[in-house]
């Protein structure tokens, strides 16, 4: 039997048909990670069969190199970049670290006064934490740019900061779309404002690719992060698209792979699968986005019917169809706590995510919601529902069926557990 061929078939049940497929529930957390596509999985398996270090000069090495370079061309073509601008990394987080640290060091080496890092207050921790690490260890000053009540960056504040401190700014980093509330940022306006002062811009597009049109060159950005497992590729691979004229220092030093800014043997199977996933996600974006936006709109309207005082966080998709990722819905449920909601929904077979970044025992209220002006008490009851390729109306039905009792119970728990007045 041809292994790769069988892997391209959708998984519909036990191979011999004797058992129904296990109930995996309604998976509404595609923004955390989304299933690998059959084509990406097939590419991964195919290339995992081959030996060869892409840096080796013999035929096996050349074959691996060829796959890596073809993948580079595929990624570049899908995202409006040149192949030489694609730097493969082991994750979106690594690409963000390379962008923030590499651009900071590169720019400061050119001009020692350039120590300011401008980031929006709603960036992912993979951007915020390297910026604050540089503040603690390398003399950087981090400027958090405010956002409005829907999570959109305040362009006037950005322009004012650029005008006042143009000579001291190393870089600007603004995400294409927010991972929690799905707000799409005005990337072109950000780039235009920064370019006026010749300041480079990094864009974290991890959530955007495959959901909204993303074109690196057309955006005018100098660097852009993408990740494999958010678009149907494997986890453990990503890329930083970086203009060749961008001052960018290495974070990982070693064999000098990837233009010398990212040493490390290339993970050819992961890169091949990543390229297939990016290609397919971009090619199928319009149809996919239309489908999940309709499903998301239904989810939003049913949640509002069931829980009239649930607060949709982020832009209203009816008012701003392009202002929000099509697969994202995010609600705060007053009087309920996110951890109660998550537990009860999980018990009912509905998998969603709380707004907080609870890292193994260290809960933090969502910095995104707080930056949007959501009160901490409301932020506590936040849940994100994110849709993807495998999402169906049955998932929304399952959520709608569970939600009345879940919210009622979570509110009862909110009255007794936790804070007392």
């Amino acid at each position: 039997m041809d292994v790769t061929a069988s892997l391209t078939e959708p998984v519909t049940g036990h191979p011999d048909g004797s058992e129904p497929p296990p109930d995996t529930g309604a998976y509404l957390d595609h923004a955390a990670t989304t299933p690998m596509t059959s084509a990406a999985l097939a590419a991964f398996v195919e290339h995992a069969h081959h030996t060869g270090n892409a840096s080796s000069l013999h035929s096996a090495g050349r074959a691996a190199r060829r796959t890596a370079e073809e993948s580079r061309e595929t990624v570049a073509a899908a995202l409006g970049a040149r192949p030489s601008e694609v730097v493969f990394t082991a994750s979106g987080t690594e690409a963000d670290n390379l962008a923030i640290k590499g651009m900071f060091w590169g720019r400061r080496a050119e001009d020692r006064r350039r120590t300011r890092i401008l980031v929006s207050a709603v960036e992912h921790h993979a951007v915020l934490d390297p910026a604050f690490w540089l503040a603690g260890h390398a003399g950087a000053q981090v400027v958090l740019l405010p956002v409005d009540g829907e999570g959109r960056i305040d362009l006037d504040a950005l322009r004012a900061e650029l005008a006042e401190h143009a000579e001291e700014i190393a870089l600007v980093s603004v995400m294409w779309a927010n991972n929690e509330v799905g707000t799409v940022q005005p990337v072109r306006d950000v780039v235009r404002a920064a370019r006026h002062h010749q300041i480079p811009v990094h864009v974290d597009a991890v959530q955007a690719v495959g959901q909204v049109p993303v074109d690196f060159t057309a955006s005018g950005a100098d660097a852009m992060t993408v990740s494999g497992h958010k678009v149907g590729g494997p986890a453990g691979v990503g890329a930083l698209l970086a203009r060749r004229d961008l001052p960018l220092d290495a974070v990982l030093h070693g064999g000098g792979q990837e233009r010398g800014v990212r040493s490390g043997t290339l993970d050819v199977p992961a890169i091949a699968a990543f390229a297939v996933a990016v290609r397919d996600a971009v090619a199928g974006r319009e149809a996919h986005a239309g489908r999940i936006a309709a499903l998301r709109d239904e989810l939003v309207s049913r949640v509002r019917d069931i829980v009239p005082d649930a607060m949709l966080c982020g832009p209203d998709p009816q008012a701003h169809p392009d202002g929000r990722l099509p697969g994202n819905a995010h609600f705060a449920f007053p009087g309920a706590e996110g951890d109660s909601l998550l537990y009860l929904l999980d018990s009912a077979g509905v998998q969603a995510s709380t707004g907080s970044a609870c890292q193994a025992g260290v809960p933090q209220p969502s910095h995104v919601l707080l930056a949007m002006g959501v009160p901490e008490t409301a932020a506590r009851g936040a849940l994100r529902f994110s849709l993807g390729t495998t999402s169906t109306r049955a998932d929304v039905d399952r959520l709608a069926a569970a939600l009345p009792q879940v919210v009622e119970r979570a509110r009862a728990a909110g009255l007794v557990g936790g804070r007392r007045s």
Partner: protein
Amino acid sequence: MKVLAAMSGGVDSAVAAALAVEAGHDVVGVHMALSRNRDQFRSGSRGCCSIEDAGDARRAADVLGIPYYVWDLSETFEETVVADFLTEYEAGRTPNPCVRCNEHIKFEALLDKATALGFDAVATGHYARIETRDAGHPGGPVRELHRSPNTAKDQSYVLAVMGPERLARAMFPLGGFATKDEVRAEAARRGLSVSAKPDSYDICFVADGDTRGFLQRRLGSRPGTVVDTSGEVVGEHDGAYAFTVGQRKGLGLGRPAADGKARYVVDVQTSTNTVVVGPAELLSVNRIGGDQAVWFDGALDAAPAGDGWFDAEVQVRAHGTPVPARVRAPEGGAMEIELTGEPLRGVAAGQSVVAYRGTRVLGQATVTKAWRG
């Protein structure tokens, strides 16, 4: 039953959860996050609240095949246990934060939340036994809290504060274990990697074990004097709140007492920020008064005329020795105690006092005063 297993990441709560699963209950593991500050609670094997501990709890839940969640109780913990710890010390009393954690966190915030979410009981890894007895009690079956057969580990003292209503929704699956080694063996037998994890000691939110330093950081330095019982100044301190009645070490007195005997803290006067030291004899008490008393079902059946005196044993420290006493429960939530045997030394206001009859916990109160009468 639907059971919430509170999983700290230690071996005891992991085995308790395993036993609840094996008893046929529908078990969900929950780790309580008690701090939002990554650095506040110590890490590694000594703490009960670190990221590593949350990871250990998660792995134990994986091995048991039960769902696992982290619940954020950090705000309630700060508002109750930590705040109480600070205000009690500030008032010159000696709090027991583990008692307050059982009272406000495990058997209030967690238990009430669990109940509201549909759980029938909360199981913990405490060493104590619950016995149900229906012999002759007019109100029906009585649930009694008893000491663990593991006398070294017995935690009935810190659990007594929960009272009867909470006990009705608690499970202590380790109640029958006589030694910790048996618990570790049970953990190893089930492939729980925490089987060899060291025990935790001390106060989880005092990261370095330095209670005085913690109090000074949170309450600030308040220099004052140390005096002897005649009022003569014999030393200085940075805050009377950091001293506890009965304390001998760390007084920082330059010269010995005139009689050459060891000196102990005999009083902490927060109104004047003064620490009073004196000889050991002054620490001896045979009368103890407490408030906020809780009594377990049937505990007062032996008390004549409702608030008359009855015989019991009382214990004032987590691993203290119980001493014989006469106890009564007057109106208003008080507990009055007269020791009938040996006096106790160094009983401080704020401590928890627990009344026992044999292994059975009768009731608990917070010490308000202790004196020689």
